[in-house]
């Protein structure tokens, strides 16, 4: 369709009026109108712009009637011009419909892709949520296990302290919680003869019970057991220091022989430097002659 030429020709025809033609030769405008109508039909105007095509058909019939009745006169050419434009409109509207369809098809695919992406993202998000939930559950299980182990350890330590108390109190000693740890105080008289550092026969039996109770700490090697020897102030400081060190070492060796780890048990002598009571009385001196087992890191009750 040469639309530009048609527009110009239309204006020219209007400006210069009617030029007569013979009836045997249809005017060019009518030929153009027929061609435009066929063009619209070929462009599927009956499907995409049926109303406009019907208008074009009616206009073309009007022009054809005018030509049949009056031949090639100006009125026939004007009506053919109108018919051609209406056929052009039907043709253009059909193309518009096709373009709209092309847009719709593309947009449908774009939307489908966007939905697919959204679903994919949603799936990934859901998967991440599930993983987070699983991790949270695992963490709860871990925390429960840690708490369970902590409780078990606490109960074990409590049992150990209870056992130590029963034993030590029976021997006239004590179990106290101090900043340096749990301190088990054993009277020197139940372990050693006067001035001696070898364990007495009865001492071994008594220490067996202690070793049994302390064996609960074998799986916690970081917690040390420090055996401290103490004397009263009778005698020289140097001899008291040596005696207390030897007594502490005797106890340490016996506990090791009863199964406590060598590296977990230490020995030290304090001589008479850390008395519990005054050495002025026999009772006070007896209290100061002692062996203390300091168990580090036991949680106070």
């Amino acid at each position, binding site marked *: 369709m040469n*639309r*530009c030429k048609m*527009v110009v020709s*239309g*204006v020219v025809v*209007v*400006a210069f009026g009617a030029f007569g033609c013979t009836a045997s030769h249809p005017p060019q405008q009518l030929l153009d109108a027929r061609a435009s109508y066929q063009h619209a039909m070929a462009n599927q105007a009956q499907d995409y712009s049926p*109303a*406009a095509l*019907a*208008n074009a058909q*009616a*206009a073309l019939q*009007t022009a054809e*009637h*005018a030509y049949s*009745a*009056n031949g090639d006169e*100006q*009125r026939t050419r*004007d*009506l053919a*011009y*109108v018919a051609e*434009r*209406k056929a*052009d*409109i039907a043709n*253009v*509207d059909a*193309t*518009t419909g096709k*373009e*709209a369809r*092309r*847009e719709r098809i*593309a*947009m449908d*695919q*774009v939307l489908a*892709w966007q939905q697919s992406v959204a679903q994919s993202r949603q799936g990934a998000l859901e998967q991440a949520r599930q993983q987070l939930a699983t991790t949270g559950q695992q963490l709860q299980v871990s925390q429960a296990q840690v708490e369970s182990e902590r409780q078990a350890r606490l109960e074990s330590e409590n049992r150990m302290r209870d056992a130590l108390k029963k034993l030590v109190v029976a021997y006239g000693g004590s179990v106290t919680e101090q900043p340096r740890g749990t301190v088990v105080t054993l009277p020197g008289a139940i372990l050693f003869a006067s001035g001696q550092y070898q364990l007495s026969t009865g001492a071994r039996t008594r220490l067996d019970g202690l070793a049994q109770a302390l064996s609960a700490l074998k799986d916690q090697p970081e917690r040390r057991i420090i055996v401290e020897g103490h004397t009263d102030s009778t005698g020289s400081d140097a001899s008291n220091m040596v005696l207390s060190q030897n007594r502490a070492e005797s106890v340490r060796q016996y506990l090791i022989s009863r199964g406590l780890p060598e590296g977990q048990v230490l020995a030290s002598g304090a001589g008479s430097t850390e008395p519990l009571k005054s050495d002025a009385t026999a009772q006070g001196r007896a209290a100061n002659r002692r062996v203390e087992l300091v168990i580090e890191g036991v949680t106070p009750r």
Partner: protein
Amino acid sequence: MKFPVRSANLSPWVLGSLLLACASTPPPTHRVASAQESVAAARQAGANDSALASLYLQSAQEQIGVAQGLMKKGDMEHADLVAQRADVDADLARSLAREHAARAQADQAVDALRAIERQQGLQNQGPTN
């Protein structure tokens, strides 16, 4: 669409014109007004944004002027035909403007789709060393 109305009015007019003389044709005031409305509708549809549509729009405006001139001269029959021509030119300008917009929108949608396809192609291809 006003095409059916005008078409329905046209056939009786054509038949009538076979019988009546030109001088009996009434002034085509409504036809000219209709053409002017069609020009306004074409402008609103964006006819000035399309080169081809603006050409038909210009033709319509010129023919409205011609029709009004013929009416002043008393050539009502010819004025009516020219007004019809102006009307269909304006209608065609409007259709062309709509086609222009529809094509642009379709191109835009297809471009978006092509961009997605290229992106998918890159994703399927994966990173290259």
